[in-house]
């Protein structure tokens, strides 16, 4: 469970930081070559790169999540399970008792 949460939090943080970093880089001309672009093509390029980066993080997260083996360590609480099984056995025993009694009475 802890591993699942770690991966989720990491993916969420990267999903936020990557597009912000790309937009910041383009707007403040940190990325080489962004100074020569016209305003409209700078908007287009920065916007599309940011959206593509978000989708890339999603795809990577899906791959990571599908690769996880189905772990058997997480089961319903064993005490709860034992009580449930006991109650089923008990009700089966009482119904068989009732069947036996009703057969006697009919006779």
């Amino acid at each position, binding site marked *: 469970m802890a591993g699942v949460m770690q991966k*989720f939090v990491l993916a969420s943080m990267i999903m936020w930081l990557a597009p912000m970093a790309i*937009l910041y880089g383009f707007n403040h001309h940190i990325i080489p070559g962004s100074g020569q672009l016209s305003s*409209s093509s700078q908007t287009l390029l920065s916007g599309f790169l940011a959206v593509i980066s978000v989708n890339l993080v999603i795809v990577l997260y899906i791959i990571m999540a599908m690769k996880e083996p189905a772990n058997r360590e997480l089961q319903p609480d064993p005490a709860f399970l034992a009580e449930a099984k006991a109650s089923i056995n008990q009700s089966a025993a009482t119904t068989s008792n009732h069947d036996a009694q009703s057969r006697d009475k009919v006779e």
Partner: protein
Amino acid sequence: MAGSSSWSRALMLISPYTFASIGIAISIGVSVLGAAWGIYITGSSLIGAAIKAPRITSKNLISVIFCEAVAIYGVIVAIILQTKLESVPESQIYAPESLRAGYAIFASGIIVGFANLFCGLCVGIIGSSCALSDAQNSTLFVKILVIEIFGSALGLFGVIVGIIMSSQATWPAKAA
């Protein structure tokens, strides 16, 4: 006096800054509304279904990630739009070029906001069903994930059109 007070004149005298600011607010506000709606629908089903089948939590967080991506699209477009909001000198504020820029930012915000609203809602409802059916039968998960991917493409369409719309929002250059 014809035309001195009419609806068209009133609408045209609304400052383009008003339209642009409302567009920016709608793009982030309504996107987050859609994302939050989707996350709470998926989250409540996921937590409930995980009582009896705790194995589903790791894979079904993908639905929550899809909904969060919807909110991020809204934030990206809001940041892009606010860099497009420039000051123009007072003489130019009602020039056709200014009005065009104000309306373009307004339209871009509405496009992105409402596309993300319904995308978030769609992904949230599908994600909730995905969690419930995965708890019963784990072979169904991948099939429902395909439907979810189609659903999240709706938000993508809105973002693409919104970005293209906003790229042409140019204000008139400052008059000498």
